[in-house]
C-alpha cells in the first residue's frame, strides 16, 4: 500500500484479511480503535512498527495475525508507522508462542527497516519466514 488517510484507515485495512477469512468480526476492529483512543499509542512498540489489538473476546473466532506495510508513514498519535501487525487473540494463551517470536524479531531494529525496504509481498513474507522464529 502506498499511502492511507489516517491510522484508523490503516488499522481497518490491516485487519481486513482477518475479517474476510472469518478470524474476527467487525466489532474487534472497533475495539482496537477504541483502545488506541483510550489507552494511547503504546502499541507503537518500536520505531515505525505498531501492534494494534484488543482484549480477547467473542469477536475473535480464531487467533491470527495480519500485516500491512504502508510506504508513506502513517501518523499514529505523533508516531510515524510503516508496519502494522494486527493481533487477534482468541484467549489468553494461544498467541503467547507467536508473540515470543515477534518480541525477538522487534528487538532487532534492522528487521523493521528491512520489512520497510522490501519491495514485494513475497519479499516481506520471505523475510518474516527467515527471521521470525516460531518457538
Amino acid at each position, binding site marked *: 500500500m502506498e499511502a492511507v488517510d489516517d491510522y484508523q484507515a490503516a488499522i481497518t485495512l490491516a485487519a481486513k484479511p482477518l475479517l474476510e477469512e472469518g478470524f474476527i468480526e467487525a466489532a474487534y476492529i472497533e475495539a482496537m480503535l477504541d483502545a488506541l483512543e*483510550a489507552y*494511547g499509542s503504546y502499541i507503537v512498540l518500536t520505531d515505525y512498527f505498531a*501492534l494494534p489489538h484488543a482484549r480477547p473476546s467473542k469477536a475473535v473466532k480464531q487467533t491470527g495475525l495480519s500485516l500491512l506495510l504502508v510506504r508513506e508513514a502513517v501518523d499514529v498519535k505523533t508516531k510515524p508507522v510503516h508496519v502494522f501487525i494486527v493481533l487477534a487473540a482468541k484467549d489468553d494463551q494461544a498467541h*503467547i508462542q507467536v508473540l515470543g517470536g515477534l*518480541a525477538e524479531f522487534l528487538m532487532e531494529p534492522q528487521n523493521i527497516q528491512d520489512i520497510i525496504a522490501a519491495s514485494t509481498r513475497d519479499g516481506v513474507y520471505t523475510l518474516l519466514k527467515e527471521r521470525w522464529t516460531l518457538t
Partner: protein
Amino acid sequence: MKILAVCGFGVGSSLILKMTITKALKELGLDAEVVNTDITDAKSYRADAIFTSPQFVSDLQGSAKATLYPIHKYSDKEEVKQQLKTLFNQN
C-alpha cells in the same frame, strides 16, 4: 525482585514488554521475576516495580503500590536496560 509489565489488556503489548525485560535482564546478568498484566490489575498488584507507557504511569500515580518506570518503546531493549539499571541501583 518482582517487575510488572503493564498494558491496556494484559495480553499483547505487556507480553512483548515482559519478553524485552526478560531479555534485557539476562544480558545485564540480573535476576527478577517478570509478570505481565492489565492496567486495572496493576493498581492493586504487589510488585517492586511497574514498567509501562508514560500515559499509564500518569494513570497509576497515586494508586500503584510500586515504583513506576515509563517505557516509551516496549521493544526497545536499550531503553528497558536503562530503566533496569536505575531500578537495581536504587534497591
